[in-house]
């Protein structure tokens, strides 16, 4: 049952790459955005909050289309990036990662923001009175204490990226080796007669990956909590 066809192996490897890159690359902006929303009051905050959540409520196809129009080779941003930095998103795995990152971003920001909000501000104040400038307070107090939320956010984004379908296929299509992730490969197999065994194999693989990611994140969070409470 588990002898994968070359196309399936390619799809699995691509999915892992796309999901990992999407989750890791969105971490820095997600942490920055979460901190901004959790700790700062500024005009337009509610609007920013709503904008970040848009991918959660928009049809994925719409998100994919917006990406196609803006980040495609003739899109406003996409053309500039291609010309000046040589970065190409359209019909590449990088585009799939971008689509997955956008779709997973709200989930990631939510998880991190909640955990930043739970960090006791009095500890941050204590650090400031000890001479720590704001960036140091953030890096040494806020971020380490919000760590479980950061891990949870990254895992959520990774899982979301594995399952992402609509935005990816709209933006970068379904090209084996470039943009055909597990979901897209399953969709392809649904269209051909006799594809059931392939579908089962890929479904089993995505189940294993998602389960593994969840277990890993649970372990990371527990390890951190254990460090804080360990008895000597």
């Amino acid at each position, binding site marked *: 049952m588990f002898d994968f066809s070359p196309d399936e192996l390619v799809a699995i490897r691509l999915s892992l790459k796309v999901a990992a890159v999407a989750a890791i690359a969105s971490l820095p902006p997600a942490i920055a955005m979460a901190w901004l929303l959790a700790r700062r009051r500024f005009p337009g905050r509610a609007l920013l909050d709503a904008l970040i959540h848009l991918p959660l409520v928009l049809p994925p196809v719409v998100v994919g289309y917006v990406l196609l129009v803006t980040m495609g080779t003739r899109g406003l941003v996409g053309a500039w990036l291609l010309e000046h930095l040589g970065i190409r998103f359209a019909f590449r795995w990088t585009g799939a990662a971008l689509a997955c990152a956008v779709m997973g971003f709200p989930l990631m920001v939510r998880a991190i923001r909640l955990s930043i909000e739970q960090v006791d501000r*009095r*500890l941050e*104040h*204590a*650090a*400031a*009175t*000890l*001479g*720590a*400038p*704001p960036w*140091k*307070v953030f890096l*040494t*107090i806020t971020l*380490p*204490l919000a760590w479980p939320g950061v891990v949870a956010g990254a895992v959520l984004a990774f899982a979301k990226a594995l399952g992402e379908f609509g935005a990816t296929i709209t933006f970068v299509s379904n090209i084996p080796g470039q943009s055909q992730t597990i979901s897209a490969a399953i969709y392809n197999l649904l269209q051909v007669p006799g594809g059931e065994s392939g579908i089962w194999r890929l479904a089993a693989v995505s189940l294993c990956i998602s389960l593994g990611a969840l277990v890993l994140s649970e372990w990371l969070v527990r390890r*951190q909590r254990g*460090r*804080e*409470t*360990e*008895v*000597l």
Partner: protein
Amino acid sequence: MLDLDLHLQRGSFTRQVRIQSDARVLALTGPSGAGKTSVLNAIAGLLRPRSGRIVVDGQVLFDSERRVDLPMHRRRIGYVFQEARLFPHMDVQRNLRYGGHVQAQAARFGFDAVVELLGIASLLQRRPRNLSGGEAQRVAIGRALLSQPALLLLDEPLSALDAARRGELIPYLRRVCTETGLPMLYVSHHPDEVQQLADGVHVLE
């Protein structure tokens, strides 16, 4: 030593607080709600007064007329809060050293001397959650001293402790007062507690 003239906003009315004192260890007392903690917070930079001036040892920390408002981390004000506020993800040693990076050569208080003064040598490897209230408060005092402050604020550091722990901590506080020579502002609503420690008393109504 300390020259304050503050207008603090409190809900709909403002309160004026004026303190001018040359006492090295000044006790600040008064009934609860008199704004003792607010005064400390204003000095530390946690609370911005509506207007006024804060001068500590000749250094202007805040002056609304001259638009001076030093950020918290540049004020060199050590603050011992009612609760110890130790960082839970660091052991005692790292807590103590947290503020220690500041002007290493101008260090007035050395690590070993502070550890010795407060009797916390045996606690260095422990996590804050495994400390008693009195131990945690001693570590908090040490942490504040090691940030090399120009003024130490103590906000009822005994109030979160039971009577036994209180008795345990008072000798350490007295040692900090007499042996460090550091200017201090000590908030308490127990007059007897401050009489043993302070050179002067300011009462807020």
